[in-house]
């Protein structure tokens, strides 16, 4: 079966040689004599041909390669019986060709289990003859065959020997083939990701060319022999001429007629690959762990091949590929991958963070002049002529022009203070509104309290809740950042109105919130969770009335050896001042019970009134408190009766002092930060009063309007300046200038009441909260500079020749 075609061909060859027709010699690589590429001696053919010679039997279907018979072949014989069957010009390259040979090859490989390239080719060469009907002889290029008849016969004989051998081998191969069926292996993703081991070893040394040297050193051992030989040869040459031993004779060799053969191969696809090794590239390659690399490689593999490599963000190197073209990349997408990714991207934390930053950046752009004014930085001047009127700060190198252009304007920057005194008289101090913290959520709510964060001066806590009992709405505590005036950073909603907020000093991420229902809650502002970390609603000693003020106090605990320990103090309408300690929960402790005192008696409280007025309760509702800045044991309490009591932490039954002056509930008591004996109070009786610690009657009182004063605050910059917020306006008083009139009055829009004021520490700004949910930021402009006086002067200035107006 196998032998017959070859035998026919062999006959053809035999017949051919005497007629000097050119035939290609078919030579099969003997399995023994191969280091793969060894050619036959004496056959001048291209090595490739010898290594890949196959038998062509046309018209035999691949399925029938096992049963190869020559019956179907068409053979042409010429007159003399020589086989002149035209052979096809096209010989598919077995290596590049169909899948089936590959399969068989792989199966053979699998069966033989060898990865070596050299042996691969060996097996391939041996297998090829078995693929009858599939393979044709491949002749690469045009090869001139010139051989002597001697060599032909030699090769013939060798060839003849082979088929017998081959048949045996083939039989074994076919057997092997039948026995083993390789499973169809589809390449899966895991296969691609699998690490394929490529083992490189050294092959035997193949000698392709060995040209022995023809030069020897004179000193070598063979030098003598060689010189002897050379001499002999010279003698021989000399003797040659007339010698009978050497006869010239002509010879003619056969020249085989060449035949041109053209071969066309597949286009060789060229791909360029460029890598730019940058400094960070090297750094990344060293520092990124292996696992991460392999994970990213798999991602790379799963995307389409048309992806431009440098657009692939997971690749470590910056590679460019000649196939890169952005439009192509976008068009030739693998869409399934993208959908998964976009969802993941939208949910990613990083996007959230980036959006957060982006919002802040936008805010900065929008609010840049305002924010700069707040932070007292030079404002970027936009190139608009209409802004000459506005009070923009100028760069220092433009000062000269400014002075000419804006003689009226006053610079509040430090460098230019010298000019202030000359221009002070012209411009009155005023409040310039910078911006306001407001958003949809807060619209319509009443701002009840403001508090700065102790660690981050840009963070502001605002509590929203109504004061009156009738208008109960849901309350909210928000944390706003200066960097984003349009949306709060944190929103903590609750069903009760918030009456007071305060940030902790020791742990600046804790925010204490007091509610209308008496609950005191502590939130951790690092989380956006609406649930407070600590809540007093289950505490047995919780407050029974609205908590009007909460404050964190750092108390010296010198006796126990601790450093300052922080406690939370709250005061509420049920007449108790309670100290909360955070141990396992909120643990409370009564600091003081506020007893009612009758207005007539000067007695210090604590005595129970047996006769006299029938009181509904013995407790006096407390509205506010203030701890002394220097001595945290002493504090002031303002009550609803209008009395201010000075109390100490050591006594929880008695008052140290009682200050009588107000006729209505005292809403706020504040100590002067510069002058430790002076404090300020405001009340619903339309009045603001200044007191000295030692005196039970107020020193100064201010009744400017007939509206309730909700809030007062001392300025952190000056001992004389304080702000008061009543229902209709905000007043800034400067006691140095006048005690009769406020320095600045800012009237509210109709329908809006100002409810809270707060000074900003490092800047000249004032925050005012109103009943519409807005917290407006005003800049105090053209304020008179604080004259640098000592404390003694302050007191005397305050308390000296001023008239005492008891309210």
């Amino acid at each position, binding site marked *: 079966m196998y032998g017959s075609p070859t035998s026919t061909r062999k006959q053809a060859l035999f017949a051919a040689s005497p007629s000097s027709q050119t035939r290609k010699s078919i030579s099969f690589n003997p399995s023994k004599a191969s280091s793969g590429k060894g050619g036959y001696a004496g056959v001048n053919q291209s090595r490739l041909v010898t290594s890949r010679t196959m038998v062509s039997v046309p018209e035999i279907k691949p399925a029938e390669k096992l049963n190869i018979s020559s019956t179907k072949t068409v053979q042409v014989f010429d007159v003399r019986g020589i086989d002149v069957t035209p052979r096809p010009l096209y010989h598919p390259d077995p290596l590049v060709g169909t899948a089936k040979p590959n399969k068989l090859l792989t199966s053979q490989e699998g069966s033989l289990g060898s990865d070596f390239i050299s042996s691969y080719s060996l097996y391939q060469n041996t297998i090829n003859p078995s693929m009858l009907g599939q393979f044709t002889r491949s002749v690469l290029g045009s090869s001139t065959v010139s051989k002597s008849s001697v060599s032909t016969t030699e090769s013939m004989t060798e060839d003849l020997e082979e088929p017998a051998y081959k048949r045996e081998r083939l039989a074994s191969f076919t057997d092997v083939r039948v026995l083993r069926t390789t499973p169809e292996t589809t390449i899966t993703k895991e296969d691609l990701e699998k690490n394929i081991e490529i083992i490189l070893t050294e092959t035997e040394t193949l000698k392709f060319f060995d040209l022995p040297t023809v030069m020897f050193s004179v000193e070598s051992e063979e030098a003598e022999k060689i010189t002897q030989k050379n001499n002999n040869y010279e003698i021989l040459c000399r003797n040659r001429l007339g010698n009978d031993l050497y006869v010239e004779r002509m010879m003619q060799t056969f020249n085989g007629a060449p035949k041109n053969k053209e071969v066309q191969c597949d286009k060789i696809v060229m791909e360029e690959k460029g890598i730019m090794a*940058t*400094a*960070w590239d*090297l*750094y*990344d390659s060293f520092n990124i762990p292996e696992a991460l690399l392999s994970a990213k490689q798999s991602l790379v593999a799963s995307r389409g091949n048309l*992806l431009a490599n*440098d*657009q*692939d*963000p*997971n690749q470590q190197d*910056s590679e460019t590929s000649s196939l890169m073209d*952005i439009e192509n*990349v*976008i068009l030739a*997408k693998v869409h399934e991958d*993208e959908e998964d*990714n*976009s969802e*993941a*991207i*939208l*949910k*990613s934390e*990083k*996007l*959230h963070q*980036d*959006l*957060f*930053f*982006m*919002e802040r*950046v*936008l*805010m900065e*752009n*929008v609010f*840049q002049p305002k924010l700069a004014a707040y932070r007292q930085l030079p404002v970027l001047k*936009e190139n*608009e002529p209409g802004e000459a009127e506005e009070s923009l700060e100028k760069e220092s190198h433009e000062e000269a022009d400014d002075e000419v252009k804006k003689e009226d304007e006053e610079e509040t920057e430090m460098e230019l203070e010298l000019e202030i005194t000359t221009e002070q008289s012209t411009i009155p101090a005023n409040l310039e509104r910078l911006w306001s913290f407001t958003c949809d959520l807060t619209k319509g709510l009443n701002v009840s309290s403001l508090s700065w964060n102790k660690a981050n001066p840009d963070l502001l806590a605002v509590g929203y809740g109504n004061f009156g009992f009738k208008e109960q709405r849901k309350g909210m505590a928000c944390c706003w950042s200066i960097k984003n005036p*349009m*949306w709060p950073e944190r929103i903590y909603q609750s069903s009760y109105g918030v009456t007071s907020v305060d940030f902790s000093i020791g742990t600046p991420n804790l925010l204490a919130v007091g509610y209308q229902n008496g609950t005191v809650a502590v939130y951790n502002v690092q989380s956006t969770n609406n649930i407070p970390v600590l809540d007093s609603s289950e505490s047995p000693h919780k407050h029974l009335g609205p908590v009007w003020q909460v404050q964190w106090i750092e108390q010296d605990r010198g006796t126990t050896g601790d450093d300052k320990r922080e406690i939370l103090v709250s005061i509420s309408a049920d007449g108790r001042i309670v100290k909360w300690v955070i141990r396992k929960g909120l643990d409370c402790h009564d600091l003081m019970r506020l007893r009612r005192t009758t207005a007539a008696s000067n007695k210090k409280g604590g005595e129970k009134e047996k006769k006299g007025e029938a009181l509904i309760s013995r407790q006096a509702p407390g509205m506010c408190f203030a701890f002394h800045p220097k001595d945290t044991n002493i504090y002031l309490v303002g009550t609803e009766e209008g009395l201010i009591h000075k109390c100490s932490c050591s006594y929880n039954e008695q008052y140290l002092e009682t200050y009588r002056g107000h006729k209505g509930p005292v809403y706020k008591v504040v100590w002067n930060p510069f002058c430790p004996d002076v404090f300020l109070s405001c009340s619903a009786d339309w009045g603001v009063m200044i007191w000295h610690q030692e005196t039970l009657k107020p020193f100064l009182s201010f009744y400017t309007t007939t509206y309730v004063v909700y809030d007062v605050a001392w300025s952190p910059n000056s001992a004389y300046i304080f702000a008061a917020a009543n229902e209709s306006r905000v007043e800034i008083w400067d006691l140095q200038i006048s005690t009769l009139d406020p320095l600045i009055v800012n009237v509210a829009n109709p329908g809006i009441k100002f409810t809270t004021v707060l000074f900003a520490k490092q800047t000249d700004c004032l925050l005012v909260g109103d009943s519409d949910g807005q917290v407006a930021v005003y800049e105090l402009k053209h304020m008179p500079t604080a004259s640098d006086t000592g404390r003694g002067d302050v007191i005397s200035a305050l308390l000296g020749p001023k008239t005492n107006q008891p309210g």
Partner: protein
Amino acid sequence: MTEVEETLKRIQSHKGVIGTMVVNAEGIPIRTTLDNSTTVQYAGLLHQLTMKAKSTVRDIDPQNDMTFLRIRSKKHEIMVAPDKEYLLIVIQNPCE
């Protein structure tokens, strides 16, 4: 996810914001408020610029990385927050 959507909506409604877009690494827009051709154009151009800028920053100090890119032009300001997987681009007209 909703928080992200909310923030995106807020950003878009800010004063002066012309467009907001989130595109993935291949330039496919995930969320955008502009039309597709403009988005694709911005994405393609900004991606290259971002890569170059990032490469520059890292070449100077490989431990550093670029976090934000702002291009201020006569008409607008383009702000890009790059990441390995996406680009967040906002175009704003900062002059009121």
